[in-house]
Structure formats: C-alpha cells, structure tokens
C-alpha cells in the first residue's frame, strides 16, 4: 500500500465488487446471463499482476465464493484454480493480444471453469440438465472488454 505501484488496494476493492455483483438480485430474465464476475476479475489480475494473484489466491477466492453462494465447499475453488492455471499458461501471449483476442481467450477460460463446476455438480448428482448452464460464459465474454478497460484504467492511476 505504501508503494504507489502496488495494486493491493485495487485488487481488494475489485474482488469485493465482484463478490457483491455475483450475489446481487437480478430480474428473472437476466438471471441465467449473470457473468462470472469473480472469474473475470481473477483473469484480469492474473494477466496484469501475476506476482500478486496466483493459484493460492484462486483457492482462497474460491472458498470465499463457495461460502457466499453456499455451493458445495471447494467447488468454486476447483473451478478458479483450473481457470488461473490455464490463464498463467497463456499469459506470455496475453500481453501482445488485442482486446478481441483476449475476449476469445476469456470465453475459453470461463467455459473451462464452468465445465469444472458442471463436472463437480454432476458427480454429486445435482448436474444441471440443460445447456443454459454455460450461458454465463458468453455473458462474461461480452462484458470482458468493459471489465478490462475499467480495471486497467484503475491500475494505471
């Protein structure tokens, strides 16, 4: 915090915002389109502050998210760890990617995260029965440029 370059404060605020957004009540029609806010913010920080946000941070956020959503304990942790691991593998390219290319990357990342929770739920016998379960990935990809630009402006301030 003392260091003006340190993104710690921005990280904390953005994750608090993301947590809030993921439990905020929405109209029924928009409910299925709720983006995966925590995953989005996590991907952003993996790309822009990889020394701060890594796998252990993903694990921590996953547990917090599981408590907030009262989902099976550890389910979101698995999903976020998978997402962060893939994001870190592709990190060397994301610096030279255009916004459009990172959007495609985000779509793939969040689909894989969603797939992880899908597998966990299915193993527990609670698997969702239609493909609308994967709609949030599309919604997240659509909202990604906005998240990217607003958070990037914030970090550069």
């Amino acid at each position, binding site marked *: 915090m003392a260091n003006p370059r340190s993104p710690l404060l921005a990280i904390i605020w953005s994750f608090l915002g993301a947590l*809030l957004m*993921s*439990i*905020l*009540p*929405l109209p029924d029609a928009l*409910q*299925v389109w*709720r983006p995966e806010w925590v995953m989005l913010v996590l991907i952003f920080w993996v790309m822009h502050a*990889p*020394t701060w946000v*890594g*796998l*252990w941070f*993903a*694990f921590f956020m*996953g*547990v917090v998210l599981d*408590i*907030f*959503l*009262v*989902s*099976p*304990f*550890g*389910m979101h*942790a*698995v999903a976020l*760890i998978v997402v962060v*691991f893939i994001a*870190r*593998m592709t990190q060397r390219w994301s610096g030279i990617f255009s916004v459009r290319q990172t959007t495609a990357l985000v779509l793939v990342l969040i689909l894989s995260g969603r797939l992880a929770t899908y597998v*966990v*739920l299915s193993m*527990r016998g*609670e698997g*969702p*029965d239609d493909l*609308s*379960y994967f709609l949030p990935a599309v919604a997240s990809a659509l909202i990604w440029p906005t998240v990217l630009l607003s958070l990037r402006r914030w970090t550069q301030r």
Partner: protein
Amino acid sequence: MFTRQRGDRLHLAATLTLSLALLMGDSLQWGWLNALKRQLYSLVEPVYFAIALPGRAFDDISDSLRLGSALRRENANLRQVNLVLAARVQKLSYLSNENARLLELTVAAESIDSNVFVTEVIGVDPDTTRHVLIINRGSDAKLYKGQPVLDARGVVGRVQFIGRNTSRVMLISDRQHSVPVRINRNGMRAILSGTGDPDELSLQFVPETADIKTGDLLVTSGLGQDFPAGYPVGVVKHIRKVPGEQFLEVTATAVAALDRSRYLLALFERPTVAMPAPMPAAAESVAPAAPASSSSAAPADAIAPAVTPTPVTVAPEVPRG
C-alpha cells in the same frame, strides 16, 4: 513469487488436492467442516441483509405512503377475513377433537394450533439451477435443518441450510426436492418432486390403474422425516398415460405462491405417523379377548372402523381454509 512453470505445477497439485479434499469432506458431511462452513457463513450473512435493504425500504415507504381510505378499506377487509378464518378454526378444532376422541389419540388435537414462526423472505439464491429462498431467521430463532416452511396457502419447501440469522429454504420446485404426499380425495400415496420449473411439479410412482383426476388436491402424508401430515402441497394439473410405462406421468402445480410470498411460516411440528400404527394392533389384541366380556367389545368395534374413514372426513376442511 511463483511465475515459473515448474513451481506452478507444484502449486497446482497442492491447491487442487486441498480443494478436492474439501469437496470430498462436503459430500461426506464431515461434522467439523460443516461447523466451519456455518461459522464462515454467519460472517457474510450481514451482506445478504444489506443487499435486501433497498427493496425492503421501498416496500416500507410504499406501505407508509398508502392513503388513509385505502388502509381503512384493507383493514375492514382483513377483519372480515379474520372473522371467517376464526369461525373456520372453531369448526376445525371441534372436528379435530372429535377425531382425537374417535382415534383416542391425543396428538391429533395438537395439530390445529401447531407452533409456527413468521419469517420474511430477504433474497433469492443467485444460482438459477437451484430454487432456494433466503429468509431472515436462523439458528438464533431455533430453526433447524429440514424444517417445513409454509405460506398462507400451502407447503413452500424445507430449510436446507441454517445460518445464525438467515437460513435457506429449498422450494418444492427444486429438482432436489421431494415430498411424500397423498391424494386428499382417496388417501392414495405418491411422491411429489420438483422439476426445476416453478409451475410444474411431477407426481411420481402413480400406478396406471390409479384413481386420480385433474384437480385432485395433494396433501402431505406425514410419511417422511420432515413434513407433518395434512398440509396442502399441490393440485393435479395434467395426467398422461405413457404406453409401455408402469407409472402414469402426472404433473401438478403448487398451491403455495412460490415466487410471490413475502412472508413464510416456519413450522415447528414433527410428523407423528408412528403413533397410529400401534392402534390397530392394540385393537386386534383386544378383539380376540372381547367375546368373553361384552362390555369391552363395543369400544373395540368403535375404534377399528374409525381408523379408515377419518382422514377423508377431516382433511378436506383443512386445505379450503
């Protein structure tokens, strides 16, 4: 810190193992893990209250802004409804007393004025694959897991997760939810399960030859662990014969206003099905001895037939209320 690929693998293994262990513990219902989860949940509970605040404030303001004449009219209306309900309760308590006398069961008398606790809905689970409401009472108000929850018309669901000041109610329309019910008209038993569609419940294990009609009322049978008998759950909507299938495909709609009720009743009543079971056995043991003394034969006869018709005569009054 750990940007290198090699280090990453190691951390991946560590974190994944840890979270998979958590998942395993969660599905095996480890006691300390559940306790930990509940503790942590009670820390984030205030957030749910804070989120519900704007909506509640809006409701409060619109309540206080309502005009005097409208309030008076509503008051008069409510008074009338209250009168009607009170009259109905009188009749019901008479019937239940009579029923208790006939069955010589004291438990039936208690079922009319069972203990309820009024709670308010403060939120909905953001996950669309689950039908879960958040209510504003928890373990501090002695709510317990599996407790039945009603609204003014019928069964809404059961408590699924308890926090300190909030709890989560799984609706009967959730795909994980099932209630043992019977058809009010003839006492036939079945299981009512949610389908994930709020307007459609599915009645399972109804044999093809069963006597069932659209419009039949389904009430809880009291056979499960959670729901006491006699509370209305749904109305049969659609019956379809599937060729080659052993059971009918029956759909029903919920009696309770699942998506509109603002106040819910948490019911403090355990099912008491185990009680009537010894009765016929006792009657049988009396009956062989009865011919010896003619005085004891009369009550034994009076009890035995009363067991079967009573659910039919008393129960229809309850759901109409």
